[in-house]
């Protein structure tokens, strides 16, 4: 990882630690999380981040689908409590105009149900020029961010031309980034003046500190108080007390008149409706016999029996675990758009081209790609819970898509040809597409 992209994406975080730590930035932190958890929380698919190049003030739409895993780890806080559909970008380089989940607007937090599919759409308005890595993500209360796949979006133009206008409930049209700023700075200035006057009064004739210190040392506290504090000091202090009370009341009353109708900060949770995904209802049953992860080959091998209860032949086209997609090049067309793209094209192979309708078929699936390493998913062999989950996508000759989630314990293999894995070498891999099958977006 090198070059200005990385610099932009990564520089923000450590530099911010310098003074006051605003917890605002985010970069490629996704791979730092435990692989097993990343593969068992939210499975992202159909992600679209368009357009990829915009000018300041133009709109970018992030949309897609996800499934909240049925295999959500017990030791991770549950999404049924509080979650927030968020965007992972370095700071407010975009502003968020709108978010919907299954068609319902989500200005605040929500809840998601394990086992359900959700459609989401987030509209962003470009604000700061640069090349930014844009992720959808879901913050889960007490658990942290669950990150989705990302693409780079380039914003061109001049940040000074950014506008964000809003209409208040009273009809006033305001420039959001300026509204109230003069009131706030004015109030700060008034009080700064009062503070400086008070300090200035005590330091009006130098020297002050040493003279008073020596007086206290030589005369004792009681006598020094009598000599150092006169009636004038007491009267001035009384005036300052009155000034503080008067100014506080006066400015607050003025603010009440200037901003007459206000309301408390709004809270609460709006839960999105659950809408079934058609392809998720098809009668397909999957039984997992064995799952092995071969570390040196970066290969996951799944030994399954799939009962195809539909009336059409099916082919295995795609496996989605967390934000990573493994595709079968014979069925689903995919390509990597940049070095950080979280898709592994043509990495899924299967020893049966089709699953006949109404029959149970034993299959061996192989997911072999460097993306296991790039996204540090290989760590599953070194984690306390050797478990993964993911979505298997099946396609029929008409191009319809069917989805099932699978979840299983895995057996790690630490050498290339472990005993008892001969069937790996005897795979009859699919090399030509099914007739009538069309590529997936």
């Amino acid at each position, binding site marked *: 990882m090198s070059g200005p992209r990385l610099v932009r994406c990564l520089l923000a975080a450590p530099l911010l630690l310098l003074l*006051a730590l605003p917890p605002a930035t985010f970069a490629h932190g996704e791979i730092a999380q435990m692989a097993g958890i990343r593969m068992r929380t939210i499975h992202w698919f159909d992600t679209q981040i368009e357009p990829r190049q915009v000018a300041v003030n133009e709109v970018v739409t992030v949309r897609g689908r996800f499934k909240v895993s049925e295999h959500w780890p017990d030791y991770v806080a549950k999404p049924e409590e*509080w979650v927030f559909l968020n965007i992972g970008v370095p700071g407010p380089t975009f502003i968020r105009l709108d978010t919907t989940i299954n068609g319902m607007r989500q200005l605040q937090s929500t809840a998601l149900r394990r086992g359900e599919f959700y459609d989401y759409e987030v509209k962003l308005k470009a604000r700061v020029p640069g090349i930014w890595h844009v992720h959808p993500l879901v913050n889960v*209360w007490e658990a942290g961010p669950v990150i989705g796949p990302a693409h780079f979006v380039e914003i061109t133009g001049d940040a000074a031309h950014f506008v964000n206008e809003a209409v208040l409930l009273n009809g006033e049209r305001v420039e959001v980034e300026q509204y109230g700023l003069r009131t706030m700075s004015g109030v700060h200035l008034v009080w700064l003046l009062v503070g400086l006057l008070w*300090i200035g009064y005590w330091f009006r004739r130098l020297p002050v*500190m040493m003279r008073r210190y020596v007086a206290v040392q030589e005369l004792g506290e009681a006598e020094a108080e009598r000599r150092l*504090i006169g009636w004038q000091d007491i009267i001035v202090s009384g005036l300052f*007390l009155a000034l503080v*009370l008067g100014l506080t009341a006066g400015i*607050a009353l003025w603010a009440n008149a200037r901003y007459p109708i206000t309301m408390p*900060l709004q809270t609460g949770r709006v839960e999105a409706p659950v809408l079934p995904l058609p392809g998720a209802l098809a009668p397909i049953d999957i039984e997992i016999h064995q799952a092995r992860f071969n570390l040196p080959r970066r290969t996951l091998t799944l030994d399954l029996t799939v009962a195809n209860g539909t009336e059409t032949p099916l082919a295995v086209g795609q496996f989605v675990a967390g934000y990573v997609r493994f595709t079968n090049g014979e069925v689903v067309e995919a390509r990597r758009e940049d070095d950080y793209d979280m898709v592994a094209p043509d990495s899924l192979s299967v020893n049966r081209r089709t699953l006949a309708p109404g029959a149970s078929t034993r299959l061996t699936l192989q997911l072999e790609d460097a993306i296991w390493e790039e996204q540090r998913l290989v760590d599953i062999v070194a984690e306390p819970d050797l478990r993964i989950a993911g979505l298997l996508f099946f396609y029929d000759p008409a191009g319809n898509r069917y989805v099932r989630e699978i979840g299983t314990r895995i057996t790690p293999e630490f050498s290339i040809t472990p005993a008892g894995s001969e069937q790996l070498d005897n795979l009859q891999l699919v090399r030509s597409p099914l007739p009538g099958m069309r590529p997936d977006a």
Partner: protein
Amino acid sequence: MALELNPQADAAPPPARPALHTAREQWEAWKNVDLMFFPLIAILIGGAAVFLGALTIGDWSYWQDWRDRRWWPLLTPLLLLTLPAVLTYAFWKYFKLPVAATAVAVGYLLSQMISRYVNFHLFTGFPMNWVMPEVWIGAAVFLDATLLITRSFAITGLVGGFFFGLLFYPMNWPTVAPMHMPVQVGESVITLADYMGFQYIRTAMPEYVRIIEYGTLRTFGGHVAPVTAFVAGFFAILVYYVFVWIGSKSARPAFMTKLL
């Protein structure tokens, strides 16, 4: 202290000649002590206050959508009062100067403005009206003036401490009122602060992490802010006493005498 550590001090004691020959010279040297005090306010005391604020107040101070009627006006003044109370002891005991709280508040505002402008606005890109710090110089002046008039930590805590907590909310009302103007977004009406919280993306700060007022069945006729202000006042009395006591322990005469 430095002399004692000098290995040559025992072998060849320097001639006992004072650096200052006349009262006039001493007077001028004393003025320099004062002149050193002012940059100290801005850099050391202000920086320390901002650092303490980042550790303890944090998000309530940073973001407008955390400035509710229940937690913000209760916790912020109590936490802001700690450093002034600690320093007040030494400033009063050894100098009879009622300026410690105001010095911290002024330093805090100046350092905080730099931090918000450079870190939050220029570098991270948040609008300034969204990250303006709170204002509490008036409450600090009130505390200092009370100490001067009463010349007693006990009464200052009771009166000045109470008003320090009580005045925080009305004093800050002008800095949050614009942000509490309602905006209609789709079918819901939310405050401008909520709306900006939604718009200006904070990846690591989802909406639900805000520790702010939610509804409760135990209300005082809906007067949340005044009740909170009074509660803050009462707790501030206690905070003042505790931290003045800590100040008395950390500013022992032996330490101060050696330093000066």
